[in-house]
């Protein structure tokens, strides 16, 4: 039984990371209706900034983290203004290809600037473990999950209670009407990208201490994040988090107790989740069904 709970705890720890990146995907999809294939690379890039500041320039962790968030936020807005806006009105295919181009560009740039070596990023949390009835729970994992949950609450409050948050929602749901009531739609959408990039930075900072940093760090995470976002409903931030945690725990239990799945079919199992959810309930666990306008 201890083994079972140990797997659940390990699953929650991985799931927290899926959830953080899934949140970023959801934000961008809400803001601009795009699936950002470069989201993982954006997060890794932010993590490299954090690593450079702490390891090479000797900054203390928290100022470096705050600076990284700010830079990522600005970078997200810049990416939207420079690369996404020109193709936003065109076909979906063009936008998808542009985000793929961005993926290639950022991944290459990271290899170019920082090389392919594995790097250690400072861990801001204690690494102690507490033992609960034979189950080892790492404080680091607890903090990770807490940060992700905290982020959702902050986001929810932001969208629910602040003027900017409401304007962003309006701009995403109905840009034409939003424009009529004086919302600067283009900036609101850019803000969505900025927030997503900052969220990616958080995801990267949470991932790096246990997974270690290299240019491809978030590529595998991105796939799980897709699955988590689809599972929770691609427009629902709370759904992304629940989806991420469910996926993390579910895959660990499948891998441990279903011999056929084992370690090797864990990834396909996640993708099966995507397929089944898309076919049975495309709006996910928490999303609202899409209404098609003719």
């Amino acid at each position, binding site marked *: 039984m*201890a083994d079972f709970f140990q797997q659940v705890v390990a699953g929650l720890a991985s799931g927290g990371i899926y959830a953080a990146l899934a949140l970023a995907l959801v934000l961008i999809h809400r803001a601009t209706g795009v699936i950002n294939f470069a989201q993982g690379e954006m997060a890794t890039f932010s993590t490299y900034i954090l690593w450079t500041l702490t390891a090479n320039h000797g900054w203390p962790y928290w100022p470096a983290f705050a600076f990284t968030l700010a830079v990522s936020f600005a970078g997200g807005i810049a990416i939207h203004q420079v690369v996404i806006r020109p193709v936003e009105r065109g076909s979906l295919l063009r936008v998808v290809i542009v985000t793929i181009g961005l993926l290639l560009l950022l991944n290459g740039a990271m*290899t170019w600037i920082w090389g392919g070596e594995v790097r250690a990023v400072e861990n801001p949390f204690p690494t102690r473990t507490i033992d609960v009835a034979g189950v080892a729970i790492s404080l680091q994992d607890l903090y990770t999950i807490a940060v992700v949950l905290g982020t959702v609450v902050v986001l929810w409050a932001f969208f629910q209670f602040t003027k900017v948050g409401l304007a962003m929602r309006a701009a995403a749901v109905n840009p034409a009407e939003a424009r009529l009531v004086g919302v600067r739609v283009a900036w609101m959408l850019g803000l969505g990208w900025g927030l997503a990039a900052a969220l990616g930075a958080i995801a990267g900072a949470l991932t790096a201490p246990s997974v270690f940093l290299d240019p*491809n760090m978030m590529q595998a*995470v991105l796939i799980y994040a897709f699955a988590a976002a689809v599972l929770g409903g691609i427009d629902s931030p709370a759904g992304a988090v629940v989806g991420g945690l469910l996926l993390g725990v579910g895959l660990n239990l499948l891998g441990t107790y279903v011999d056929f799945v084992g370690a*090797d079919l864990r990834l396909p199992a996640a993708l099966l989740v995507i397929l089944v959810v898309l076919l049975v309930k495309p709006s996910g666990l928490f999303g609202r069904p899409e209404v098609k306008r003719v």
Partner: protein
Amino acid sequence: MRTRLALATLTLAAALVAGVTAASAGQAARAADPGVTPTSILLGGTTPLSGPYSAFSSVARGADAYFDYVNARGGVNGRKISYTYVDDAYNPAQTIQAMRTLVEQDKVFAVFNALGTEHNLLVRDYLNAAGVPHLFAASGSTTLGLDAARYPYSIGFQPSYRAEGWMYGKFLARTRPGSRVAVLFQNDDYGKDLLNGLKQGMHRSKVKVVAAEPYETTAFDVQAQVASLRSSGADVFAIFAAGKFAIQAYVIANKLGWRPKLVINNVVSSASNVMLLASEGGTNRTVQGSVSGVFLKDPTDPKWAKDPAMRLYRTVMARYAKGANARDVYHVYGMAAAYTLVRVLERAGANLTRAGVMKQVRSLNIASNPFLLPGITIKTGGSDQFPIEQMQLQRWEGKAWRAFGGLWGYRAA
């Protein structure tokens, strides 16, 4: 329909022209082997320069630096060595295309030190059919040594993974009877060879493997596997993993509060940066006392600080591999292989042919490769076509590896 026929005829005619020229090129090869002139030798190889396995490219870089050093001192029998290593991103389908480029377009004399197990096994058929020497393949696959009769142009270099696993098994059987071993292994030939070797070495002893968990190289972490292994109640943790997965295994074990009495970490992961990163700035105590196999002089081992060969190593790195991390043992691997090849080329003499090189390769006896541990002999002859078969164990103490005990020679059961 008629146009199609006309087209086909035209095609065949065109292709015939090209075909004839290629065939005559094949005949001309007998006079003087490709890639050799009185002043130069062209060698080719493949290595992952990009992608998740790019850390392995240090092997090729180390070899290249050594060739540059040899060239600066006049080359081999008056010939300068030019070594072209091409990226295959660790994808075997790209390896074969890259090999064709090297053989058919660049016309290399021999392929040297190509990296990866599946990659070398795949191109082996092609290179033997084309009659290109396939020298000192950087893989521990057992078949490279066993099947020399079927593949007269191919030869490996390092001790086989099976031999390495066997050594760990014997070591545990002798020094820690009764211990229970948990294994994390990469789910491919490399990981499985190590695991099988380990079991072979502990055969009929009081040591047993109580849990073995595979991981996929496409995975993002090994958290679930290490959590499972921890629950098995093992007191020895064997990490048969590559690169960042080995680091993760240490870090996750520490995070879960698992303190196995001994951790075994295979050669590929013993590169210094793996251990330094796994130490987490000294906070991870699981790393201390880890045991690993070694056949190269480790650049982080203080024992070799004044060793002439390692001094040479550092000089060559500083001069010919600027910006590279000289603490990375993969560079030493590359130099050890390059040194061996240079010796082979010297002995093959002024009239350099592929056949002459293969004759030397099949009867090696080099006791003095300065980059290998003292006492290790590179030896081939008759049916024994494994160049290096000896290893030593080393322990991670403080911030460096320290070798202990004598040399282990693999004796297949």
